[in-house]
């Protein structure tokens, strides 16, 4: 049976992830076998369905983890299936219990929210942690270890604040704006290896993307990894940052806007390079280098 047959109209219009596991496994094996030739990247294809036609060509819906490397998946599918159109559907659209990277999150005591960056391991306890900014998960230093962390998708508690880097006022220069929280089992319906990330150092000229809760997936290019920034933190005033990764957007759309804080930033091969924290919502965005986040928050992968 060809892969095209596998996702033919007979099983279309129903979601394949409810079909016998063998079908999903076969599709995932197909993707893995092709993607195996690419650098290890983060993706998870839950299912695929033929949902109709677009411009007289078959239209498929791909159901993937938020933040999957869609280009790699699309390329792999097109190579095997030939022509067709592909539409991406976030996994959390049908898997509401899970907390996915790229969703809105907040500290329960805060009026602000930002983006869940992704999953890492606690260097000290080996627990799985969710990462975002201090000003997202720890309410800009107002947070207390043990605070409830909220999944804004349904305003449910997903975990507990365990650690953050205190943001310091000038003349001190901050290296990171980062915080970590544990995640309840109910909000982590994954295998860690499926969401495991691989960090590399950011470099000038590197093409990067992020998938933020406010502006979705956008691409940009790193122009500096040693920026000195003074950013407005409202009630904390202006805070200085050093060793900042500076990113220009690709095209006219801003790389990041309000609500994207906490997004992880990846290079075009899917390797993790930074943690977004601010910008001017127009021409420029700023991130902490992932090596500084690792060293200052006490995490590993």
């Amino acid at each position, binding site marked *: 049976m060809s892969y095209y047959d596998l996702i033919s109209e007979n099983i279309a219009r129903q979601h394949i992830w409810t079909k016998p596991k063998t079908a999903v496994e076969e599709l995932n094996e197909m993707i893995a076998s092709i993607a195996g030739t690419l650098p290890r990247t983060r993706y998870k294809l839950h299912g695929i369905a033929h949902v109709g036609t677009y411009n007289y060509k078959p239209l498929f819906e791909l159901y993937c983890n938020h933040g999957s490397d869609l280009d790699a998946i699309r390329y792999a599918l097109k190579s095997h299936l030939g022509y067709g159109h592909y539409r991406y559907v976030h996994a959390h659209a049908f898997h509401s219990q899970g907390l996915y990277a790229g969703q809105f999150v907040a500290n329960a005591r805060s009026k602000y929210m930002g983006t869940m960056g992704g999953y890492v391991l606690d260097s000290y306890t080996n627990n799985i942690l969710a990462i975002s900014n201090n000003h997202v998960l720890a309410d800009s230093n107002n947070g207390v270890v043990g605070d409830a962390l909220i999944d804004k998708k349904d305003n449910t508690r997903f975990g507990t604040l365990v650690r953050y880097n205190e943001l310091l006022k000038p003349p001190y220069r901050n290296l990171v704006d980062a915080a970590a929280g544990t995640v309840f089992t109910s909000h982590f319906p994954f295998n860690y290896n499926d969401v495991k990330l691989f960090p590399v150092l950011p470099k000038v000229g590197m093409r990067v993307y992020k998938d*933020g809760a406010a502006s979705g997936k956008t691409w940009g290019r790193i122009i*500096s990894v040693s*920026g000195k920034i003074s*950013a407005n933190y409202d009630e904390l005033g*202006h805070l200085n940052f050093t060793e900042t990764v500076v990113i220009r957007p690709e095209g006219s759309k801003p790389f990041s*806007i309000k609500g994207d804080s906490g997004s992880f930033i990846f290079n075009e091969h899917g390797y993790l390079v930074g943690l977004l924290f*601010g910008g001017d*919502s127009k021409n*420029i965005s700023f991130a902490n280098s992932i090596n500084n986040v690792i060293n200052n928050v006490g995490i590993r992968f």
Partner: protein
Amino acid sequence: MKKNMNIEQVLDELSDIWLGRDGVMGVFEEQRHGETVILFLLKNSISNKEIPTEYKGYKIIKENTPEIKRHSE
């Protein structure tokens, strides 16, 4: 133009003097036409004539920005 100091040191020195002062929101390097230049991000409303146009062999370019803010909402 002969550059007589590495870029990290230059950024450190310039930011010690200027960062957070007189509307300077950012100091960093950028490649422009194959040359490393230094960018000063300035608040739109401020026009600072005291900022030098060159430092230790690096050309300085001013760029206006609305405001640098954390990106929570």
